[in-house]
């Protein structure tokens, strides 16, 4: 085997310039493919991360029927069984209790419909770094702190400043009137304009009092240590809870986002397909040339006793070497760029940023460094090179030695 590997490796370099040109084409295609894919996966990750951190969590536990009718009347009182089922799941890193509803926010002559979220300060900060988004004032210390947190967009709209009072008016649990005056404790700024313009935070205790929903929650938003095991964790949770509870994964609660990602992903895969067609033809061209110019050499080798199967192996090793060298070189070339863009993502501005904001997505383009990206490219190029190597294999097993020796 070593003899065959040695022959294949040396054959690769007998036309150094041609091999380098082929390698360069594979390298560029692989680098481009990894970059495109990394950016796509990174952006999807950002979209999903936004949806998960600012909204539902990877998994949400709520009362049965709440998802279809998101009314405070479908809230629940947490009990020991629910807590123990959550605590039993090692994949759960965080369970964030929330009481969510809607209200009219009013100040002076201005009124706006807003989402009201009653939160546990520490858990919420751990989930989405809310405490770090405060630009004025102080964050909640306990889940019974008074005051309200509003986004800078809403503050501008309602012409409010720190210490001013915001009036909330809505419907509480089982038809009770929900009305209250709340001093503005802090103003926050998220990279998502939708949140800045339409969401206010109360401590959980204050929200329960406002909505006359003592001890009640609308959901537990669950964060996971390993999101890839989301299905398993959801199933375990559902199995431990009775029919009063509904356990949903984020894709089921964000169908529009899933469809957006699927649509975009399909376009990306078509692009990749075109790129790999280019790679395939590049490699095939080289392999074809290498076969044509070595016909007589192949005939001599088989004449003196090399089995065609071993000759085929030499040829396939040559194609694999070309493919793998291209993949490794491409990955090494693009990796520093991807690492840089992962930690310093491109920030969109102008209309593009606005389009992202409208979808509730932070307008940045981070890259993904998922090792699967690189492994998948390696496997793909390996398959392509092996397919390109089929021609010489067919040739090696069909040519007539005596005729070829005459060339």
């Amino acid at each position, binding site marked *: 085997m070593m003899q065959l590997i040695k*022959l294949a490796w040396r054959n690769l370099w007998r036309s150094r310039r041609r091999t380098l040109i082929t390698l360069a084409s594979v390298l560029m295609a692989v680098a481009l493919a990894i970059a495109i894919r990394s950016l796509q996966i990174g952006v999807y990750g950002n979209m999903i991360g936004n949806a998960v951190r600012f909204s539902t969590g990877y998994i949400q536990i709520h009362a049965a029927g709440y998802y279809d009718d998101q009314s405070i009347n479908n809230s629940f009182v947490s009990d020991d069984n629910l807590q123990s089922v959550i605590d039993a799941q090692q994949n759960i890193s965080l369970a964030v209790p929330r009481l969510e509803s809607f209200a009219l926010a009013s100040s002076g002559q201005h009124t706006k419909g807003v989402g009201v979220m009653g939160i546990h300060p520490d858990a919420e900060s751990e989930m989405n770094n809310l405490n770090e988004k405060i630009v004025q004032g102080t964050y909640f210390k306990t889940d019974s702190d008074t005051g309200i947190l509003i986004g800078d967009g809403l503050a501008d709209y309602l012409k409010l400043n720190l210490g001013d009072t915001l009036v909330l008016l809505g419907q509480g649990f089982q038809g009770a009137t929900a009305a209250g005056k709340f001093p503005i404790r802090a103003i926050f700024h998220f990279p998502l304009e939708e949140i800045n313009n339409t969401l206010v935070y109360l401590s959980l205790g204050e929200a329960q009092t406002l909505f006359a929903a003592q001890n009640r929650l609308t959901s537990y938003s669950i964060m996971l240590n390993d999101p890839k095991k989301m299905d398993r964790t959801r199933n375990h949770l559902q199995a431990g809870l009775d029919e009063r509870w509904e356990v949903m994964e984020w894709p089921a609660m964000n169908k529009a986002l899933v469809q957006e990602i699927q649509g975009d992903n399909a376009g990306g895969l078509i692009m990749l397909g075109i790129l790999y067609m280019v790679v395939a033809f590049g490699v095939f061209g080289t392999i074809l040339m290498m076969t044509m110019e070595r016909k007589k050499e192949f005939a001599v080798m088989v004449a003196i006793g090399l089995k065609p199967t071993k000759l085929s192996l030499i040829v396939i090793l040559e194609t694999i070497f070309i493919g793998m060298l291209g993949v490794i070189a491409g990955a090494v070339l693009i990796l520093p760029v991807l690492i840089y863009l992962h930690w310093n993502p491109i920030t969109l501005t102008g209309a593009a940023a606005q389009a992202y904001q409208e979808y509730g997505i932070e307008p940045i383009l981070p890259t993904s460094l998922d090792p699967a990206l690189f492994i998948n490219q390696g496997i793909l190029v390996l398959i392509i090179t092996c397919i390109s190597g089929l021609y010489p294999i067919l040739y090696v097993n069909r040519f007539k030695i*005596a005729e070829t*020796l005459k060339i």
Partner: protein
Amino acid sequence: MAVIEISSLTKTYNETTVPVHALNGVDLQFEKGEFTAIVGPSGCGKTTLLNMMGGLDAPSSGEVLVENEDITRMKAGPLVEYRLNNIGFIFQSYNLIPVLTVEENVQFIMELQHRNKKEVRDRVDHLLQVMGISDKKTVRPKFLSGGQQQRVAVARALASKPKFILADEPTANLDSKSTDTLLDLMAELNEQEQMTFIFSTHDQRVMDKAKRIITMEDGKVISDVKVSN
């Protein structure tokens, strides 16, 4: 006892269009230790006959028995094994493997035979010494003269310890000095090791060294003469 027995051998190319009868009923026998030249004008069937003996091409009819085994009936796999273990080939244009050094070219066949490393090393060293190219063992073929390359080709042909060596116009690309040196080496091997050599050639110097001269014309043997040098 004959090493090779050829009987009623024919080969027709383009059988469905314009038939060309390259071999037209050849009957021959070769004994161990012969030093035979097959001569005749271009297109008379010399190379075709060598190809049939070497299992490189299939005849239209007839048989080639090597130690009583008909190689024309062998399947592709066993035929490769047969060539590996029984025949040494020397080609007109040397046909060394360009990416291997002199030493690696010679040991290539022995490695295909799965010989042990010591045996391979010893035999390669011995053959390169006999051929007078020990100092070139780490050199690739493109850095050698034609004569030196052909000596490597002879060493490669001998490496597998074949039953006979088929040489197709081995001196056609060599100058007279290289030809003489090469022929002397092969004649010596023939004398000392009883190695059987069968040449196809136009070269008078090869004919002068040969102990038997077979003359062909139009795919037939027209004379078969033993000569004493």
